[in-house]
């Protein structure tokens, strides 16, 4: 619902509720574009849009989720332009079908030695190698800690799709992490159980 705010009111709201999230937004932008200059541009464009549309923000609600949604939309628009991806509706239909068919798939589990073998940059590279919609959901849930209903609002899908897409994204990511660990010479045989069993 649109409110009529004066310029001083807009400025105060921007300072009080939007700017405190600038580090988190920059970090999230860096994860998405993995380039400092593009992350800076994405952050600036996000905050500019947030200010332009501040009359639609409801004071005291989840500002971080509101800003991340703007950042995600800005990123996706730019991403589609750059990669000449099919239109949104095609992608959504494709992903919905994949999400539905994969939702009952088994969990991929890794042992603690495998995780211990990997450094942060390797985990980040594995996240970056995921298709963009899966990367988004892993970052939103597993790194930023958003709840399913917040993620559903940020990426504009039903909660059931959040659930199934997250399940698939995690399995894809763990498969990639396994590959990294194997290349480093670690045995990723699942039959050995977790470290915690010992």
């Amino acid at each position, binding site marked *: 619902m649109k409110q009529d705010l004066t310029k001083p009111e807009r400025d105060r709201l921007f300072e009080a509720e939007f700017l405190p999230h600038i580090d988190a937004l920059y970090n999230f932008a860096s994860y998405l574009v993995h380039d400092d200059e593009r992350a800076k541009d994405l952050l600036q464009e996000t905050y500019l849009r947030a200010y332009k549309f501040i009359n639609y923000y409801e004071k005291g609600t989840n500002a971080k989720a509101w800003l991340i949604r703007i950042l995600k939309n800005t990123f996706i628009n730019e991403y589609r332009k750059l990669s000449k991806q099919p239109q949104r509706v095609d992608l959504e239909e494709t992903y919905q079908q994949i999400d539905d068919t994969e939702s009952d798939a088994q969990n991929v589990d*890794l042992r603690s030695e495998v995780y211990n073998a990997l450094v942060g940059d390797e985990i980040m590279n594995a996240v970056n190698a995921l298709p963009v919609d899966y990367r988004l959901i892993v970052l939103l*849930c597993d790194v930023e800690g958003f709840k399913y209903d917040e993620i559903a609002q940020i990426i504009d899908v039903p909660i059931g799709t959040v659930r199934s897409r997250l399940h698939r994204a995690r399995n894809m990511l763990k498969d990639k992490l396994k590959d990294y660990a194997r290349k480093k010479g670690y045995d990723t045989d699942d039959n050995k159980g977790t470290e915690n069993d010992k």
Partner: protein
Amino acid sequence: MNCTELLSMLQDFVDNELPGEQANELNKHLADCPECEKKRQAAMLYKQVMVSKMPRKNCAEGIKNGVHSAVAGYASTEA
């Protein structure tokens, strides 16, 4: 609750999305089922690793100043 039911709810459980009553049922099963407990530990381990190992970047002052300038520039044209 059996193992199949537990596995269908495990993701919601480790993400703290499961209502209290169902979470209690799940905890009861976990206490008696080492195989399911092993799966819970593996799922929790993944979540801990993602939070602790993903590198985080703070926004440099110069970038923050750039955001301020861009917004102030827009606000001044609007006034």
